[in-house]
């Protein structure tokens, strides 16, 4: 192996060690410690993969360093409130009658105390949470990246040399998605849908990658959040069903099966109709579960170090080494998963769109 390659690998390894270290610091001295200095792993993981009103960066000597994010609320009185999340002090303070619920149904979310009954009421909450912020940030970066590539093309003619470097990589990605996924899955009308499917691919892929980065601009569990994946699934649902052909709807409500399956009890139409909704639902759950699981595994493996502290130094050192090795491995797997999940989501969306573009069998024979 060339020395440069070895250097690169060493760099990556060091980076991952540093990252793991950063993670450990974050959760070691953080607020996940129960009485007696023990780490509550479940709570720590759930806290990480969930959403938050501030962007926690690190904790030094028990002092939290985090970026306060804007809280946007519509109170019971119908008035809109905008203030920094630092005013709530991680749930230790109340501001304008709002506070972060510490337990109960709305645990971790901002609730408003009813003035009369003292009941906690969930308000209209449009706060720029950690996930929302990460979403906006990565959206801006994504738009910037893709548009800079588009600009490169605008400045040139078809006769010019093909791009190299980053633009070339993006072109390779785009064209491989178009040629290997969109074109074969949709068929002749693929031109119409490729911008949407490419947007989906790059949006998921980029957010997945940002999620793998464990420190500030990344680290949020964006694509492992059901709200995010549900919006993506809804978009696919809309695209599939809005542009569905007559034949597609016919196959849903009056499929070519023996008559007794349709009349008097519409068994097949019912199944098909359920299928219309389960397809995007499966998309939503698949992406959500995969990314969530990835984040959880990395965190779980990292916390092995702190759990084994009580088992003695030798055991702790051994387990730490194992934990770091495993974390590195899982991080690489996550890199793969980041691509695969984006690819799968795009491919299945394309397949569903392709199914909704069904032509009647007679036409097919004619063609």
């Amino acid at each position, binding site marked *: 192996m060339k020395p440069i390659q070895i250097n690169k690998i060493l760099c990556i390894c060091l980076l991952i060690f540093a990252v793991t270290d950063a993670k450990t610091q974050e959760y070691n001295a953080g607020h996940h410690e129960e009485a007696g200095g023990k780490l509550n792993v479940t709570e720590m993981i759930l806290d990480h*993969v969930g*959403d938050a009103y501030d962007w926690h960066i690190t904790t030094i000597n028990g002092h939290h360093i985090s970026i306060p994010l804007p809280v946007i609320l519509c109170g019971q009185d119908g008035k809109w409130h905008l203030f920094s999340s630092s005013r709530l002090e991680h749930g230790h303070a109340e501001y304008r009658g709002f506070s972060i619920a510490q337990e109960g149904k709305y645990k971790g979310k901002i609730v408003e105390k009813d003035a009369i009954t003292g009941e906690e009421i969930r308000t209209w909450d*449009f706060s720029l949470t950690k996930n929302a912020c990460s979403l906006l940030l990565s*959206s801006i970066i994504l738009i910037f990246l893709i548009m800079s590539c588009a600009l490169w093309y605008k400045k040139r003619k078809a006769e010019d040399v093909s791009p190299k470097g980053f633009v070339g990589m993006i*072109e390779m990605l785009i064209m491989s998605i*178009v040629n290997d996924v969109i074109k074969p899955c949709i068929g002749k009308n693929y031109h119409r849908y490729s911008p949407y499917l490419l*947007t989906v691919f*790059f949006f998921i892929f980029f957010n997945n990658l940002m999620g793998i980065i464990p420190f500030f601009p990344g680290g949020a569990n964006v694509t492992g959040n059901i*709200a995010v994946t549900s919006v993506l699934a809804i*978009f696919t649902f809309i695209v599939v069903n809005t542009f569905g052909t007559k034949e597609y709807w016919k196959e849903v409500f009056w499929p070519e099966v023996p008559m007794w399956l349709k009349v008097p009890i519409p068994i097949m139409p019912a199944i098909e109709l359920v299928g219309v909704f389960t397809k995007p639902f499966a998309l939503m759950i698949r992406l959500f579960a995969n990314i969530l699981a990835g984040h959880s595994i990395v965190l779980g493996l990292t916390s092995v170090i702190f759990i084994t502290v009580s088992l003695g130094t030798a055991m702790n050192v051994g387990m730490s080494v194992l934990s770091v090795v495993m974390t590195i491995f899982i991080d690489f797997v996550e890199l793969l998963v980041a691509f695969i999940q984006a690819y799968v989501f795009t491919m299945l969306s394309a397949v569903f769109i392709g199914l909704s573009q069904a032509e009647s069998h007679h036409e097919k024979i004619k063609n």
Partner: protein
Amino acid sequence: MSLLTPDLGLLFWMLFAFGVVFFVLAKFGFPVIIKMVEERKAFIDMSLESAKEANARLTCIVEESEKILKEAHEKELQILKEADEMRLKVIAEAKQQAGVEAGKLISEARIAIQKEKETALRDVRNEIAMLSLGIAEKVLRRNLSDQSVQRELVEQLINEARIN
């Protein structure tokens, strides 16, 4: 925070973020790139096609030039052959002509010789006749008593004639 219940605020922000990304990229981003790549592909295909055509034309030209060269060579050979044949023919003809001419000359000469011969013979005959007449005259003039003397005289006369 429950993991399985989508948060309304995040739903809103996701809708907003994805909507904006979708709008911008689907309108100004990807179509530009795809169009350009397809144009480039078409251009490359066209270039390949024209290169192929040019190549074909070039081989055609090479073949044609070779053909022309071959033809020229053949023609050259043919011309040479024809020239050779012509030469031989001319020579043969000349020979024939010469033969004929020579024959003619010979026959003419022969005729002339014959004529000369005839004339000479005639002359000789005349001369002999004249001589005979002379001899006869002389014989008649002398007294031809003796046979031997007559013979002697005849011989003498012939000798004279021979001398003459």
